[in-house]
């Protein structure tokens, strides 16, 4: 009896894990261009600068049905949009800037990112002019998909033969942004986002890290200025192959600091994907 009990318990666990399947699936890109753009910038400047970087990756897996021509997703269809934007400006002063940015439109694995940006800028004001460095950075990922049969998307014969269920539809939005204005100090940011994937087991993900430190070469133990960060996650999920809403989630974090900043650090990281038991 005990043996049978254990066996049925294991089976229930398997099915439960199958039922818990939820959240984001990412589209994969067509095989056309596999574009890759690595870019680096080095700048040492006394004076004014104005710089903008923008990356936008919109990817769709559509089935080409009539419903889609009217703006609806048909079962199995997916869409993801990844936007990265960085604006930086100084109106004089001393600036040292290093930027390392890679943009890869290809399908990603679990540790890969479509947008990977690291920026370190060190700034000192021109005391005669009171100049400032202002930056604004934003990383936004939205993913949306309609329900799909589980056995089509998880290529695991064991699971699909046991569980013939559906993965519900979903809408997710991830947003990280910062606005910083400094008269002196060092600003370092890392922004990474993943919006296309080889298969459904690779989660949607993004990471945003911001640090403000004193510029040690000035001898001042602090950075001076103001900084604001904003992180938002919203997610809604449907239940199996219905249009009923089965869960909604919201996460929001907003921080503003101003004055003498000895150390300010924020790290925001999110991943959302499928997890199938016993796979």
């Amino acid at each position: 009896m005990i043996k049978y009990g254990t066996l049925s318990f294991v089976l229930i666990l398997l099915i439960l894990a199958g039922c818990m399947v939820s959240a984001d699936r990412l589209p994969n890109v067509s095989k056309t261009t596999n574009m890759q753009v690595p870019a680096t910038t080095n700048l040492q400047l006394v004076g004014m600068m104005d710089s903008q970087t923008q990356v936008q990756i919109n990817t769709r897996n559509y089935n080409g049905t009539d419903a889609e021509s009217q703006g609806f997703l048909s079962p199995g269809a997916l869409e993801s949009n990844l936007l990265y934007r960085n604006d930086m400006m100084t109106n004089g002063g001393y600036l040292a800037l290093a930027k390392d940015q890679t943009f890869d439109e290809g399908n990603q694995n679990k540790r890969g990112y479509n947008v990977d940006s690291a920026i370190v800028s060190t700034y000192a004001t021109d005391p005669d002019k009171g100049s400032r460095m202002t930056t604004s950075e934003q990383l936004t990922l939205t993913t949306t998909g309609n329900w799909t049969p589980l056995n089509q998307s998880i290529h695991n014969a064991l699971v699909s033969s046991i569980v013939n269920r559906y993965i519900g539809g979903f809408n997710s939005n991830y947003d990280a942004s910062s606005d910083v204005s400094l008269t002196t100090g060092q600003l370092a940011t890392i922004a990474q986002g993943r919006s296309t994937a080889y298969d459904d087991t690779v989660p949607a993900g993004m990471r945003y890290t911001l640090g403000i430190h004193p510029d040690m070469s000035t001898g001042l133990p602090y950075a001076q200025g103001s900084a604001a960060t904003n992180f938002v996650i919203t997610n809604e999920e449907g239940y199996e192959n219905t249009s009923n809403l089965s869960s909604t989630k919201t996460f929001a974090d907003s921080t503003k600091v101003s004055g003498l900043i000895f150390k300010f650090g924020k790290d925001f990281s999110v991943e959302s994907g499928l997890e199938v038991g016993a796979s």
Partner: protein
Amino acid sequence: MKAEFFDRYGMWLLMIPLLSACVSCSQGVSVITPPFDTSVIASSSVANMQNVAYESHLGSTVVGEDETVPADVKYSVSITGANRTDGQGAEGIAKTKFVVSVLEGRGTELNVSSEHVWRDETDVAGTIKNLMKNFEYKSGIRI
């Protein structure tokens, strides 16, 4: 890729023989290459410069031996003071611009399956001790 210059959706019919011609894999499976439309711009300019050393390199691959050779654009620019040992920077205004934009279809569908834009612009004015930018664009078919 040669087909780079036939990048127009209106030319799709023309592209069928050009692009969708079955690319043979090692297994002999045929692959349909979807249509695409790509543009790449890299530029830099200076104005009112004094005491400047201005160096730029541009390299591009636009004609391929076969379809597995990726289209490639490399651009790097460096602006420093004319005499690097005295530590004086270049004086003046410098601008750089880099834009990549891509539309892609999927399979033989004309629907756009992905859109990508990459844009980077930097304008600086004043004493430029060092302005260095490197870009590399690479795009091709993976079989």
